[in-house]
């Protein structure tokens, strides 16, 4: 069935496609530079700057990074582990909490929301937080200290509440309750299925948070076997600045520092996999629409 499009719709579509195309190009442009830089000879980058296509094509940057494949594969493995465990546990806890504080019959929902939100404004700073994990819980060096601190964030909890309020009408849960369903049943059978876009969004944010994190490794890892991928790469980048600062007054011979092209290759290595993952998550954004369309 083909409906003739109205003039306004055509205008709108032209604008949409044009702006999205421009936006995409602007966004992808630096990435292309990074990608081509990672395949360019280091001296060429330093002398001639960046370019869209690689000049003096070489794989040496990637060879440098993968020279110790054991390390980088281990870092990949650990990051994958943190991301999967953290996202799964975190998503479950966030959704549960979002469900509870969206229930009208729960008297203290506002107080609980406030207590959760409050943590995003007030904090005791990094030091007591660090001591909590390192000294009180004695978790320094464990993988727990790396995935646990990022399980939830006030932002995601409140976002989840908004999604639940928006997509689960009270009438449905009320009628389920009259049918004798408990909270857990309602949560799993009714709330979860209609919440797909919300779950995908919050899950994506959680997963990205884990994938991009380097700070907790920096703070809590005592062994490079537990390093997150981003920290593995970030630490190499930082060595340059740190050693420059440090060796001014003292005669410490410096180790081999990463070159420009290696830095760019690292950016590619760290980003690549999650970019492959994103289209997979996108499925849920699209499927939301088709469900609606079928209904309509």
């Amino acid at each position: 069935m083909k409906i003739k499009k109205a003039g306004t719709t055509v205008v709108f579509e032209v604008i949409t496609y044009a702006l999205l195309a421009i936006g995409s190009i602007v966004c992808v442009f630096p990435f292309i530079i990074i990608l081509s830089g990672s395949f360019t000879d280091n001296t060429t980058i330093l002398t001639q700057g960046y370019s869209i296509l690689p000049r003096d094509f070489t794989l040496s940057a990637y060879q440098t990074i993968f020279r110790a494949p054991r390390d980088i594969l281990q870092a990949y493995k650990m990051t994958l582990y943190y991301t999967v465990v953290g996202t799964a546990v975190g998503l479950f806890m966030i959704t549960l909490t979002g469900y509870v504080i969206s229930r009208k019959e729960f008297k203290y929902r506002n107080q609980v929301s406030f207590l959760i939100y409050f943590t995003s404004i007030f904090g005791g700073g990094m030091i007591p937080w660090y001591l909590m994990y390192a000294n009180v819980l004695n978790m320094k060096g464990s993988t727990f200290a790396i995935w646990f601190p990022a399980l939830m964030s006030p932002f995601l909890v409140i976002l989840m509440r908004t999604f639940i309020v928006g997509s689960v009408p009270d009438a449905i849960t009320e009628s389920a309750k009259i049918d004798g369903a408990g909270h857990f049943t309602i949560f799993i059978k009714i709330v979860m299925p209609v919440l797909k876009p919300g779950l995908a969004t919050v899950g994506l944010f959680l997963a990205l948070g884990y994938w991009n994190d380097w700070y907790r490794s920096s703070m809590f890892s005592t062994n490079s076997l537990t390093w997150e991928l981003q920290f593995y790469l970030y630490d190499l980048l930082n060595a340059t600045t740190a050693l420059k600062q440090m060796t001014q007054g003292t005669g410490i011979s410096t180790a081999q520092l990463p070159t420009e092209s290696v830095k760019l290759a690292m950016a590619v290595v760290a980003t690549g996999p999650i970019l492959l993952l994103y289209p997979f998550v996108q499925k849920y954004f699209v499927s939301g629409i088709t469900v609606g369309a079928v209904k309509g």
Partner: protein
Amino acid sequence: MKRRKLLSLFLVAAMVLTMAGCGGKSAADAMGEEQPDTAQTQEQEPETEGDAQEAAEGESSAAQPAELDTSERVDLVFYVMGDAPDDEQMVEDAINEILLEKVNATIDMQFSTWTDFQQKYSLELTAGSADLIYIANWLNYGQLATSGAFEELDDLLDTVAPVLKETVGETNLDMCRVEGKIYAVPCAWAEYVCNGIKYREDLREKYDLPVPDSLENLEAYLMGIKENDPNQGLLTVTTEESQGFLTGFDAAWVFNLKYPWVNANGLPYGLASDYDSPADVYDYWYSDDFAEDMKLMKKWADLGFWSKSALSDTNNSESYKNGLCVAEVAGQNPNKQITALQDFKNDGHDDWKSEYIAYGEITNTIYPGHATQNGTAVVRGSKNPERALKVLEILMTDEEVNRLVQYGIEGVHYEIDDQGIYHNLEPAHPTFAYEGFNTWALRNGEFKLPQETDIVLNEMFDKYEKLGEQTKFPNVNIYNGFSENYDAYQAERTAVSNVMKQYLAPLQAGLVDNVDAAVEEFRQKMTDAGIEICRDGFKEQWAAYCDEYGYK
């Protein structure tokens, strides 16, 4: 009924008021005649929370270098800087085997990594989970020791580690004193870190230019290269990364060619004094010399010696190595010259030649590195300070253990050739590099294995040692033994640091339109920020320091 109830309530209230109202009086009168007692208590050592301290003192009263009680096995943590080598575990196991046998202890190296290492270093001390820790003046050894981060070692060294004390030597240990107490054991290997200029000797010869041993010659050298090869980059300079209070922009290091200062770039807060008369402090930032110097910087910037965007330059670590600049003037030292030589060779630039000229050679102010540049301390709150020091003694003075900790396992990680030169067995990707644990503080001249490049380095050191002999204070590093206590003027100090970034850096980078006006503005802002308070505080402490050590 209710009236009476209310009434009684207020009666109670009134009663309370009269009873409690007398509290605001000063307590001084009530102290009684206990005065002398109090004074005495004050004199005594401040009591600490940790039992370790008391235990340590208890030990010291035993006086004799008595046998250490090693019946109980202890596992110690040694916190060092940088990244772990791949074969950390293998080498640790080898060391621990010996340590267990000798003192029934094991050691676990923990690494700061190079990310946020300053912050993590103080966190480590706050949490107190390590026993031994690397110290250095660039890690604020002085301030940390004053603040009580480390155990006092004066007595412990005598009782537990007399061999260590002897190896390191009284002079070296004395340099680690802070407020009269030893808090760290320095390494037993002297080095020279004389700052200077690294330049391209091959280009200088090619274009027949002067050696850059003065501001005029440096200018001529750079100009000569620019004229012959207009596309060649000249200097790579940027805003100071480290938060010194000496310069705001790298290029200003060149004035070390002009002034025989006691320390590279003078003293903090725009003060200066000469090496020959350290106590004689004079003003630099408010002097006419300074205004003249800034005009020179403007001239150089206009000549294009460095990029107009240099204040934000980010990519300067490899310029010299890749031939993008022809001289480096800031933060250089003999070791960096060696690295450059090596880089040129490794990258196949056999026709490139790097040469080094120390500022002190020209101004006759050569002095060695300071003991606090590499040291090890026992963390306050360590449960086993004696054992920790004992282990440190073994790590430094036992040849077998020292070699293990510094170079790894012979035959696996390194070998020694006929001339006694160290060679790594996996030079492309070492699983345990030279000094792979980054324990620069455990260097012991007696056991130190020379690398190939050390031949050149030692030649340089010999030269500087001879030059150092000829100064007024032969081979003494005056400035680095001083640690400033700025508690009283922290706020002003911070403000000064900001003004340096905002007004001094563009001046020293020659990026202002009118130098005189910019100098005036800079001085005004400095005065507003309270520079005088910082200067007064610093001068007073500096004078006391010079007085104490006789640097007149």
